């Protein structure tokens, strides 16, 4: 089998891997790097459980091939454990009851995070749009939207 050498940045550190070109980013993360926070739900782009950030934008890692990673910056949920904004989102997810089985949570958090990086004061519609590609079978979304809203309020300066 043919292998390709690919260099990219994973959670802030430069990495180099040798993998078959048909390998998906999702499998590279889970198998090569043992980063299992990224989940496989559907494998066909429909559920968002596999969401990661590519150059800061939310993407589906189940639809990305190894070769497409060359020169990019990939951030997974593990890469943001010490990030203030991510920690705030995580706390609010817990407080609002936005986590039940937890399968959708890493992807949901990353979609919310990508939104807040772009726009610290999104409207409820912006929030709904940002998580439209993340399926949750447990919560009914209300608590998730609340948790994200709460994170925007606490982030924004009330005097402004």
């Amino acid at each position, binding site marked *: *089998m*043919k292998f*390709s050498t690919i260099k990219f940045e994973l959670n802030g550190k430069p990495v180099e891997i040798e993998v*078959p*070109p*048909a390998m*998906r980013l999702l499998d590279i993360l889970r198998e090569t790097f043992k980063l299992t926070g990224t989940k496989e739900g559907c*494998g*066909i*782009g429909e559920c*968002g459980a596999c*969401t990661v950030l*590519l150059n800061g*934008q*939310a*993407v*589906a890692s*189940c*639809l*990305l*091939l*190894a*070769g*497409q990673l*060359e020169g990019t910056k990939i951030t997974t949920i593990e890469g943001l454990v010490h990030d203030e904004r991510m920690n705030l989102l995580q706390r609010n997810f817990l407080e609002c009851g936005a986590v039940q089985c937890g399968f959708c949570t890493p992807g949901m958090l990353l*979609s919310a995070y*990508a939104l807040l990086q772009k726009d610290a004061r999104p409207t409820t519609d912006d929030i709904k*749009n*940002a998580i*439209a*590609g*993340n399926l949750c079978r447990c919560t009914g979304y209300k608590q998730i939207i609340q948790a994200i809203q709460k994170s925007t309020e606490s982030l924004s300066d009330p005097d402004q």
Partner: protein
Amino acid sequence: MKNFTYKSPASLKDASQLLGDDWSQSIALAGGTDLLNLMKNEVETPTRVVNLKQIKELNKIEYNSGYGLKLGALATIAEIAAHPVIKAKYRVLHEAAREIASPQLGNMGTLGGNLCQRPRCWYYRNEFPCLRKGGDICYAIDGKNKFHCIIGGGPCFIVHPSDMAVALMALDANVTIFDGEKNHTVPISEFYLLPEQDMYRETVLKPGEIVTHIYVPDVGSGEKSGYFKFKERGIWDFAVVSVAVMLRKKGKTIREARVTLGGIAPKPWLEPHVSENLINLVPDEDNVSAICDQSLRNAFDLGQNGYKILLAKNLMKRMILKLAS
């Protein structure tokens, strides 16, 4: 997924050469949101995948007043949806881009890939050796055909799944294609083919050819446009039926109209009866309804998709009246 060699050429010429002259051997990759699923189900089993994303000249969106819009084939759906000039002037394009898939897929999917995506027919996507895959029957005729076409079909009854194509057709866009040596440009209305013209491909592209740009004419004064997509579910989904309308009015009178439909035919469908009859009309609910009711005369019900005929007429009415008011 079968393994393959992966190439990332930096020039169009190299990309075209790597694509070669055999569809089944070598295939172009842009965002991969359609291609990966096709490869996973082994509908496509290329031995070489040619990544277009390193070709830098193809990702720009440029607007020049008096000249129009030039969209690179690698511009993403999210970039098109967020572009301020497109949002202000080309509503139909903005609204169609906003309706496509989820944010994740909008960040990945490109315009070129959207226009060249393959049919969603579930027989085609799964393990059925149907006509389009070189077999000898169309499973949709006696099978599940709720989402198949009502017009322009036979012997295969796909619908074209692209939202951008429907919007660009209403804007009378042109598609520029690189053939390995030089560029040529075709109107988007001639870019797509019906199954009776080609049973296996949906576009005029030949092996080794690459879509490089889409040109959209400048917006004239009094011009308005819009897109409406009817979906089965509240969140993202492919269109059951969609409609794109461009109207140019002078005073109360319509001077120019282009009405196109998605989800009803194997290609984005320009409904000439409606577009022509709207010209020189002072539109009101009665005359617009009458024109739309008379449209789609050749449409037929395969058994489960007849509801699309009325739906398409009603969506056209609704969008024309909305833009005309």
